[in-house]
């Protein structure tokens, strides 16, 4: 397969897959029509099922949170916000959740990127301590 040219580099489709899966974050991408287009697989913090691909993001959330999800997307689409950030603690983990408005070179809204990270290790680093081989 020929490589895909990017702003600063080029990757084959296989490399895109391997790279996104290896990122220390769970990624979900919803396009400008509010349809789920992609999520990175593997051992996710919040599970995603293949069936969500192509569905409206509004159909993938419990009724209690739909209004908030819609508010965020509306703010992104209108250009009022570029990011929405949340954090919560589970039994063992500190989970950091970011929604990022994706805009193209012309500034048009092109979708929302959800990035979910387990931030436990980086939060627990002690100031002045420098670890080279800590398990991430």
């Amino acid at each position, binding site marked *: 397969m020929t490589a895909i040219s*990017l702003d600063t580099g080029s990757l084959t489709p296989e490399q895109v897959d391997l790279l996104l899966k290896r990122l220390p974050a769970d990624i979900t991408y919803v396009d400008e029509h509010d349809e789920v287009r992609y999520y990175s697989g593997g051992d996710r913090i919040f599970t995603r099922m293949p069936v969500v691909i192509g569905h409206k993001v509004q159909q993938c959330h419990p009724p209690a949170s739909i209004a908030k999800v819609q508010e965020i997307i509306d703010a992104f689409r209108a250009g009022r916000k570029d990011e929405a950030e949340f954090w919560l603690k589970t039994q063992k983990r500190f989970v950091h959740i970011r929604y990022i408005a994706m805009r193209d*070179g012309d500034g048009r809204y092109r979708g929302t990127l959800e990035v979910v990270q387990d931030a436990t290790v980086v939060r627990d680093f002690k100031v002045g301590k420098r670890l080279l081989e800590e398990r991430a």
Partner: protein
Amino acid sequence: MRPTGRPSDANRLVELDAGVLTAEQINLLINHLPFGVSFADERDALCLFTSGPPYQDCNRETIGGSVQACHPIGALPTLEHILMEFRAGRDEPFVQFDESGEGADYVRYFPVRDERGAYRGVLEVIENARRVRSLRGERRLRLW
């Protein structure tokens, strides 16, 4: 705003494990990640760095060249050690945390392997950890 040029093959469809994206969407997605990412393949050729920090001043002409060529000489022993360990089968990332600068850089190196376990390259992920370290309590979706 991050530069997000339109790739020449913008509308090409790329089938991924979970979803089908256009080349343009892949470009946008990678360049909107909230951290810096660079990737060198199994031959140590630099394939990608993201367009925002900390790579905003990196020269695009280094892409395709060896990853060793775009590091200062002083960093080469560490880089070679990381590459050697990953080629030898190490799966755990190398982690460096540096709070001396403004950003509190949290730097991680991951080996990238394919389904058969073959080494396919090294992924560098650089985050500004200051923000996430400063968060207190919780902020859930309903509080937005």
